[in-house]
């Protein structure tokens, strides 16, 4: 266990060295505040840009606070996912390419703790960044529109974070399967997009799909309470994460021993 903690600390230290602890949270904050600000100032922005004929009146319905938060969260499923995949795709394949992995694994470090420490490090970074970013979305929405109860904020945060963790684990799985990190990133994006597309089109049959967690988070924000299917979806997400992690340890061991 203490060895695992050392590996995790090394991981966290490395993320300090390449400034991930600074730029990923800041990026998530900027992503998060964009939505409340732009929907609040839309009339002024239209005015400033101009180009409207004299006397044109545009009536824009003011969105409710929940709607703003939901669109704000939507940013994390597109650009946020892209950032998560791009930052984690090289996490194992890069070390294998540069030979750092071989150097560490010469010591009595198990493959399992090597991979899981890397996973835990990136999960910590992702949860921290997403929390900070979403908190700023919530704060700005409260400031400019209405305050959403903090408990609903926390609930929707957990559902979303769980789905983002699934995405992160998929990326780590591909990162341990391929030496080429670009390939790993591309495949993870494909898998994530297919998963969300299939789950949203067949949403009646796939209520338990982890990709549905984002919809359940939206339901919570709309004050509809926590949907029943959240529990199976979360459980399946947890199982999925575990299976993928064990698989990536298995593949990583095989590839590393083959070299």
């Amino acid at each position, binding site marked *: 266990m203490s060895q695992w903690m050392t590996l995790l600390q090394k991981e966290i230290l490395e993320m300090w060295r*390449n*400034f*991930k602890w*600074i*730029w990923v949270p*800041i*990026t998530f*904050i*900027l992503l998060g*505040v964009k939505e409340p*600000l732009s929907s609040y100032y839309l009339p002024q922005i239209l005015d400033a840009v101009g180009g409207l004929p004299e006397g044109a009146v545009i009536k824009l319905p003011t969105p409710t606070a929940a709607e703003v938060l939901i669109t704000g969260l939507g940013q994390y499923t597109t650009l946020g996912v892209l*950032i998560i995949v*791009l*930052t984690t795709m*090289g996490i194992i394949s*890069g070390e294998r390419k*540069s030979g*750092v992995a071989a150097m560490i694994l010469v010591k009595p470090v198990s493959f399992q703790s090597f991979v899981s420490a890397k996973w835990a490090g990136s999960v910590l970074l992702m949860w921290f960044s997403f929390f900070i970013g979403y908190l700023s979305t919530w704060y*700005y929405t409260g*400031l*400019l529109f209405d305050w959403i109860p903090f408990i609903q904020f926390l609930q929707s945060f957990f559902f979303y974070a769980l789905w983002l963790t699934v995405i992160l684990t998929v990326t780590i799985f591909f990162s341990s399967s391929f030496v080429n990190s670009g390939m790993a990133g591309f495949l993870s994006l494909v898998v994530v997009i297919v998963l969300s597309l299939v789950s949203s089109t067949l949403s009646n049959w796939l209520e338990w799909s982890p990709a549905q967690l984002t919809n359940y988070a939206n339901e919570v924000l709309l004050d509809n309470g926590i949907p029943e299917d959240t529990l199976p979806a979360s459980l399946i997400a947890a199982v999925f994460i575990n299976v993928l992690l064990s698989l990536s340890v298995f593949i990583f061991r095989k590839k590393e021993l083959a070299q």
Partner: protein
Amino acid sequence: MDTLANYLPIIAPILIIQLILLIVAIFDLVRIEKTNGPKWLWVIIILFINIIGPILYFVIGRKSN
């Protein structure tokens, strides 16, 4: 001027973190040995492309080793 004072408490924090992002990116660019592509190009990208520039640098500009 009056309207600007109204907006300032809302916009200022965003400008500040944007500035932090820019400074960190430049700081890292100065320290790092090699980047993907020429360094001077990254200086221009970071300084002149708002928000996206520094993020692009961190995501694709850095060479990990």
